[in-house]
């Protein structure tokens, strides 16, 4: 077994890990649909989205490693950190659920990522701006694909509507975390790296409101609950996903294709 790497606590690195880990963990979760989606065409679509997200994670983690300055590459960052050093929002690590759950989560995350990538195109970090320029096209499609499905399911049969409402009840309050600011956001905004988390809240609410409205679904009221994955405090599901994600690199250190 390879021991975990130690990370330098740097706000710019943490800002990038929050983004890169969101892509990495959701990509891993979506990969679980491979061979299990309701139809073969959607199976391929979900795998495509998962691979887009893994690609984005690779680029962002590579940049995070460069900014950290300790020679950690994308693989070390993806596979050799301890659970508390992953800074993805809790939302993306929750088990994949049924198709309504996955569709709603994809809509929530893709809408958030699209808005974030749009802003990051103007990042003071030229590398991050270039990554964002490519990723925003992918995120736009992910959002449209998920939103179209959500409208079909929400406005579909009694059963599909029931499942969407159950997904909303289970997932919605995990979205709040995406828009909470802390010192990492302050540092990123001050350095011109990217927007504060809270700056995306209103647009996200508006776009999600439009999607849910078209789907005939009611947006749940805000609750005080806050998940804290972006601060490294994860749900009980995170350990299992990391065990699967990290197994090969831990068992065969430095293994490559």
């Amino acid at each position: 077994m390879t021991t975990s790497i130690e990370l330098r606590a740097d706000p710019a690195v943490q800002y990038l890990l929050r983004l890169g880990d969101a892509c990495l963990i959701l990509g891993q979760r979506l990969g679980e649909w491979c061979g299990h989606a309701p139809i073969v065409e959607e199976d391929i679509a979900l795998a495509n989205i998962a691979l887009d997200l893994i690609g984005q994670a690779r680029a962002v983690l590579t940049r995070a490693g460069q900014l950290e300055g300790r020679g950690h590459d994308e693989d070390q960052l993806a596979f050799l950190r301890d659970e508390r050093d992953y800074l993805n929002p809790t939302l993306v690590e929750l088990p994949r659920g049924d198709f309504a759950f996955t569709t709603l989560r994809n809509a929530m995350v893709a809408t958030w990522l699209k808005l974030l990538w749009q802003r990051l195109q103007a990042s003071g970090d030229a590398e991050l701006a270039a990554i964002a320029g490519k990723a925003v096209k992918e995120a736009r499609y992910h959002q449209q694909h998920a939103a179209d499905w959500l409208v079909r399911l929400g406005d579909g049969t009694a059963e599909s509507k029931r499942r969407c409402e159950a997904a909303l009840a289970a997932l919605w309050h995990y979205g709040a975390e995406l828009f909470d600011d802390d010192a990492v956001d302050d540092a990123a905004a001050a350095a011109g790296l990217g927007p504060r988390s809270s700056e995306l809240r209103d647009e996200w609410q508006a776009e999600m409101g439009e999607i849910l409205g078209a789907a005939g679904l009611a947006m749940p009221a805000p609750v005080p609950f806050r998940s804290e994955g972006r601060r490294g405090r994860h749900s009980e599901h995170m350990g299992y996903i990391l065990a699967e994600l990290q197994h090969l690199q831990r068992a065969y250190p430095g293994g490559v294709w």
Partner: protein
Amino acid sequence: MSETTTRTEWPLWEVFVRSKAGLDHKHCGSLHATDAQMAIQLARDVYTRRQEGTSVWVVRSDQIIASDPGDKDMYFDPMEDKVYRHPTFYALPREVDHM
């Protein structure tokens, strides 16, 4: 496709992909989708994921009128011995060689 089939099964769509500007759309396969919008998206995901396309057409398979395979000898075989329909029986000017 009959009414009963469409009620329990998603309609079939034929997919045409244009590989680059200037070329024509080529038939490349089919897929099931509930409506045109979903058919376009799934066609993009299934048939252009390796950079095969710059444009996609879809059309419902039941909207295509095809010739009957049973008519093949009547329709197509008579053309076998009509080589004079190929423009190969006159000399080309040297300037337009390699046609």
